[in-house]
């Protein structure tokens, strides 16, 4: 049975992470999720809004929640953990009636703020189950050694996010194992990459993201797999910057998990968006042999 969700793409999905957006939409279609864009959605304000004022942040979020409340859906999903944290934190704060009132005044309309809000990863794992997804993997990624990188906020703070373990999350590990990849233990799976300081403090980012790349390489990974557009951009697009700053020479492809699920279910082409990755994954995928993912560029 198809499940219907209101889809909140997030701004990065229109630009720097368009392959995450397109592969997520395609993956959901393949796996029986109907995603309906929240019509005319606006930016949730991301880190800058909550760093400036919680009322402003919640009011920007609330416009999207209010629009979604008029849709015939069972909840809201977003691929982006940063949007997710903002959406869920604002909803959580609106449990306090006084704050809820203030938000409605600033928003200029009523909002219930009671729809379930989840990551696409969460509904995939909870609505479909790992076993079922394993059955769909007709082109398993045998031989691909990966580390799963959740980033810092996918599961934090735990009483707001309410999904998986905040210190040792397993959803991506299980999913990647189910599609045939070899998942290596990764101590830095929830460490921060410094994305929010990407433009302003490259020294901080080079150190934090550099640590993630170093650890992935030391673990023997061929690639990093992530569910966060900010982490992906930091580790992939900035990989050359980071190498330069740290004197390292990593060439680690950084996949979105949705891209790998598409490959493992035998899907290819533009929607998967492998050509959008800055560190090219093609020679790695070709080295896996003919059965794995059947990849061509």
């Amino acid at each position, binding site marked *: 049975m198809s499940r219907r969700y209101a889809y909140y793409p997030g701004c990065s999905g229109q630009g720097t992470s368009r392959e995450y957006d397109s592969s997520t939409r395609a993956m959901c279609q393949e796996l029986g999720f109907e995603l309906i864009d929240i019509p005319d959605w606006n930016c949730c304000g991301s880190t800058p809004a909550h760093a400036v*004022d919680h009322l402003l942040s919640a*009011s920007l979020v609330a416009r999207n929640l209010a629009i979604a409340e008029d849709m015939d859906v069972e909840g809201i999903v977003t691929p982006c953990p940063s949007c997710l944290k903002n959406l869920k934190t604002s909803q959580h704060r609106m449990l306090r009636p006084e704050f809820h009132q203030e938000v409605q005044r600033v928003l200029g309309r009523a909002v219930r703020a009671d729809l379930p809000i989840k990551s696409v990863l969460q509904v995939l794992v909870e609505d479909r189950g790992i076993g079922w997804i394993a059955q769909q993997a007709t082109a398993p990624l045998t031989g691909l050694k990966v580390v799963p990188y959740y980033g810092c906020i996918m599961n934090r703070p735990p009483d707001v996010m309410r999904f998986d373990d905040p210190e040792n999350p397993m959803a991506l590990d299980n999913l990647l194992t189910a599609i045939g990849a070899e998942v290596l233990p990764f101590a830095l799976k929830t460490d921060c990459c410094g994305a929010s300081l990407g433009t302003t403090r490259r020294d*901080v980012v080079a150190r934090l993201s550099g640590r993630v790349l170093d650890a992935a390489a030391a673990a023997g990974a061929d690639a990093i797999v992530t569910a966060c557009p900010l982490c992906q951009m930091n580790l992939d*697009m900035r990989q050359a910057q980071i190498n330069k700053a740290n004197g390292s020479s990593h060439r680690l492809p950084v996949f979105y998990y949705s891209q790998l699920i598409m490959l493992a279910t035998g899907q290819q082409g533009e929607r998967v968006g492998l050509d*959008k990755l800055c560190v090219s994954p093609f020679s790695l995928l070709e080295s896996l042999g003919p059965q794995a993912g059947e990849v061509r560029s």
Partner: protein
Amino acid sequence: MPATTLTNSYDAAFVAEVRRESEQNLALCYQCGNCTAGCPVSFAYDFPVNQIMYLVQTGRKMEALTSHAIWLCASCETCTTRCPNDIDVARVMDVLRHMARRENLVAEHSIHAFWNSFLSSVERYGRVFELGLMASYIGKTGRVLTDADLAPVALRKGKLTFKPHDIHGVAEVRDIFKRYREHRS
């Protein structure tokens, strides 16, 4: 840290304000240092996050609000997740930024300028327009070379758009900013 000066005398109003805005009981902090142990940006902080908590507990407003740490905090929520007393430490950091901003005590101008540029983009178009955001940030800080090396890559990969992603309801978003400012003034 310097010995007693005028700036580090106890400011009770400040303590009450942080407590009210963050909805956290700061007195619960017993300085175990767990927050700092897990803080990824600690190496760049002037005061580690447990010391920021101490500055707040002891009412040392100026030192807390003029610190660089509150701006460098990456909002990663590790401290909040690991505090044994369930203090939402990341929220306290957020609230200190709010206060520093209101009182014109911002220590990290480029980060502040970037956030302002980001929010102007949201106010103007309803969504973030990366190219416009970078142009505005460069205009505010003069940091022309910031990420200039990424532009050709982003362009080649079709990840930079030259047209703002404006939305139909942009007037509604502008009204949110307008009413928020009225509410806060």
